[in-house]
């Protein structure tokens, strides 16, 4: 399902296909065994769609995201953005971690600009830096070093830095996981606003069921050891979503049940 189109927005997103992907690692001990992290994972994300992946710890969510980012390679299977097979890291697939990982030696402005510098287009597109600083509401902090920022502000810089190269897919690895509850809810709206403005394809990994329901068009539920897609849930609730709506709560308990946390 492609998200509701707001008129006049940029459609930057591109579809993403994960086809029968398997990933195994050499075990840490001396036995020659290999640990299977992902086992035949297949799913597709439509252009401009917002998909969340939830699942218990160590179910291979982050491994999957690293494969899509091109920072790691699958043992078998194929990953595609649009029609192109992923063969390595590329600016068309942005990545935001739980730790903002801002470069501490660069100011906010230069951190956001670093994506343009890395692509060698900093001079032509310099004007966009200010647009992105404004987009994430950090006008007064452009020349500040990252350690002066709060967690929420630092994560906004990380989002702006990942978006300035206009990625087709934005991969979010628990980006709001380290924030307090209020900042987190505020940032969820922020991320949704950024998404709706450009319809970048979003793939969010989260531990937070409310977050997944609040934000996504679809939720993929993964099971651990080896990591598999267990269930796909499509959501067609109106946006902005009401966190206390009966449908919201019903879905929430349904997912909890699926993850074995429900009342028995």
């Amino acid at each position, binding site marked *: 399902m492609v998200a509701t189109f707001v008129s006049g927005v940029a459609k930057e997103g591109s579809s993403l296909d994960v086809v029968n992907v398997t990933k195994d690692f050499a075990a840490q001990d001396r036995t020659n065994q290999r640990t299977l992290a992902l086992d035949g994972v297949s799913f597709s994300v439509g252009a401009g769609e917002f998909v969340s992946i939830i699942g218990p710890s160590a179910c291979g969510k982050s491994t999957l995201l690293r494969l899509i980012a091109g920072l790691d390679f699958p043992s078998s299977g194929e990953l595609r953005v649009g029609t192109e097979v992923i063969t390595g*890291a*590329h*600016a068309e697939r942005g990545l935001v971690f739980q730790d903002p*990982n801002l470069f501490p*030696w660069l100011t906010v402005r230069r951190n956001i600009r670093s*994506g343009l510098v890395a692509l060698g287009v900093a001079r032509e597109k310099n004007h966009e830096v200010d647009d992105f600083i404004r987009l994430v509401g950090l006008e007064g902090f452009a020349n500040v*070093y990252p350690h002066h920022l709060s967690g929420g502000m630092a994560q906004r810089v990380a989002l702006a*830095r990942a978006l300035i*190269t206009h990625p087709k897919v934005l991969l979010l690895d628990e980006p709001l996981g380290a924030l307090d509850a209020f900042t987190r809810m505020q940032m969820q709206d922020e991320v949704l606003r950024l998404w709706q403005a450009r319809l970048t394809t979003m793939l969010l990994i989260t531990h937070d069921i409310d977050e997944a329901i609040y934000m996504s068009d679809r939720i993929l539920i993964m099971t651990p050891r080896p990591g598999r897609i267990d269930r796909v849930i499509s959501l067609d609730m109106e946006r902005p979503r009401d966190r206390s709506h009966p449908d919201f709560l019903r879905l929430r308990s349904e997912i909890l049940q699926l993850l074995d946390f429900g009342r028995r």
Partner: protein
Amino acid sequence: MRDGALKVKELVDTHSAVASPKRPQRYAEKVRWSTLLALPFAGVAALCLHWFAAANEAPAEALLYTYFLSGFLVAALIAIAVQPIWSGLRSWMRDSSPLITAAVVCLVVWEIVTSVLRLLPLPYFPGPAAVLSSLVNDSGVLFDSTWHSLVLLLGGYTLGVVVGLVSGICIGWFPYARYWGMPILKIVGPIPATAWIPLAMVLSPSAMFSAIGLIALAVWFPVTMLTASGISNTRASYLDVARTLGAKRSYLIFNVAIPAAMPSIFIGLFMGLGASFLTLVVAETVGVKSGLGWYVSWAQGWAEYGKVYAALLIMAAFFSTIMTALFKLRDHVLAWQKGVIKW
């Protein structure tokens, strides 16, 4: 005695001012009279003692030292007169006058031990007056020696830093360079550069070149070691982020790994600088026929210990100036660390 008491009181006051949250504001505005008066008081004490000691010193040296102390006294009085209208001088005096007072007290003690009581054997331990006179009378040669040392030091240090940075970055980044470079670094590096002097004398056409080479070698080891470890310890997530921003290898090395390694690189630069001072002085003592190290051993050969101490004073000022310059450079380059770590 009174000086000492003043100084201790001053330190206690400064300390309590730092500890109490309310006082610093008011304290920053004014300088206590005891702080200000410590300087002329120390100057007068030194002059009085010197008049007493002058009988035991050569007349020309005694006169020169009198001028020096009088000059200090006049400068202190002028500074006290000017400080109410010059805030920069005022804050400098508040910080520095206890230290300067202590330095003058050291001169007084020195003169008592040498010229007045003659507790230490001559000619090995001349008084401050004799050292000052050597410093002034031989200033031409000392200046020339300092210049030669500077050329040698900067030549060797620059060469060592450039080669060290290049080899450190290569060893830190490329596994192939690490495989072949690390053993060389581990075997050759720990040998003190001065141990190569016999070989350097045979190999090199001139003492000057061999000295530059030895200083460069001494600098190369710590700079390479700490650059390599800084580069290879770059947080993997910084590199991952940069890759997903579309960074090529040159960006990863020059815009991520090197800035991330800068704190470590600067430790290497400081260690290299210390090693270069040592190697410089030894090289000048053994081979090169100029520079401060040479001057010290030459003056010692003539038993002119006044000149030896004069050269040591110059050396102290010279080396600490260079060290300060490197600190300034670090403060500039690592400005982003302010507030992250304690400097």
